[in-house]
């Protein structure tokens, strides 16, 4: 059987802890190729260079926050699949993110099923 190309995923979060744990999960359980960015600005640059299939985007980050990064990524690529992954899952943030074109919103702490659902819904 021909090996399928790995799905490329961008994790944009200023927390090393979140990046490490999510990378481990995506690589070991979902066979993804993971790219990391430590703030919104790095996320935009990285998206433009690597064009991942899915982005997991934090909101509160230094330099450039996740909502601004989402807006810019959507400007670069309207079809970008961006899942917000934030500890501040307030209704205002949720509405704002969805208005800006986020595909999904997961409040931290996430679990495996939420990540699985987020990935599978994007690939439908």
């Amino acid at each position: 059987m021909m090996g399928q190309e790995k799905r490329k995923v961008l994790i944009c979060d200023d927390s090393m802890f979140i990046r490490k744990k999510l990378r481990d999960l995506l690589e070991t359980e979902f066979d993804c190729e993971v790219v990391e960015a430590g703030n919104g600005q790095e996320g935009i640059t990285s998206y433009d260079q690597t064009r991942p299939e899915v982005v997991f985007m934090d909101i509160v980050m230094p330099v450039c926050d996740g909502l601004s990064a989402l807006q810019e990524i959507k400007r670069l690529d309207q079809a970008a699949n961006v899942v917000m992954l934030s500890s501040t899952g307030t209704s205002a943030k949720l509405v704002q993110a969805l208005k800006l074109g986020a595909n999904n919103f997961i409040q931290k702490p996430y679990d495996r099923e939420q990540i699985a659902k987020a990935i599978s819904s994007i690939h439908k």
Partner: protein
Amino acid sequence: MFSQYFGQYLLDKGILSATQLQAVLAEEASVRVKLGILAIDAGYMTPAEVERVHELQKRYDKRFGELAIERGLLREAEVARLLEVQSQRYLQLSQAIVDQGYLSLQQVDEALSSYKEDNRLSAENLDALIKGDIDEIVRFSLDFGEVENATCYQNYTALLLRNMVRFLGETPVIIKRQSAEDKPYSWLITQQIEGAGGLHTGLGLNEDVLLALAERYSGDDMPAVVDAYAKDCAAEFLNLTNGIFCVNASNNSMELDLELQHVEQQVAFPEKAAEEIVLRLSFGDISLLLA
């Protein structure tokens, strides 16, 4: 929680030594049964259902019974029955003290009476300690007097304590509450919650405690000295707590925003009129700072 509070009292009064307390708490912990286990034992839930509720508890800041009822996994009467069974187990610490030969049954009984009297514990207070009702424990343990944000501080403290139970596997004890002095902490983690009803939050702790907190929260081994990853893990625990605080506020129509966390060494909490609540965990003390 009763065991931790009563145990701390026995230690403070010199009735038990630290080593003796450690031994009896370890013995008591080895037989302590959580509500989920009791639910499986009673045939009310499957292990997978209990595991699912534990996962949900990490996100929704609700009690096990409450979530299980909401999801149709338990009926109210079943939860009441399980809580009753659980509350009868509080005497296990006393039993462990007697079994180890540290005190006689009579001495344990006298110490328990003194504990209730010294702390002016009502039957309801004792019931809250036995059932681990953190909201109620915080309410009667922390009197913020005339402080403007008293209720907000109590709610925040209760949330942090619940997260220490859920994410660190700890049963913290409230040691004291005082006005925060302008003193430097070995390590200070801070985060501002912006908006009407917002808070400036902080955790003051020493090097070993920061490393233990980071290790417990992340599940990763930490180095002997604090590095960038340890700082990040400890700060993420505060961020997680504050995120849930914002969500709870949002559910009550209050919109709050989080600023970035800061982790600094040898600095004082930046707010002048701040409250300090000292919490004792198995690996050391943490000062919760609120303003």
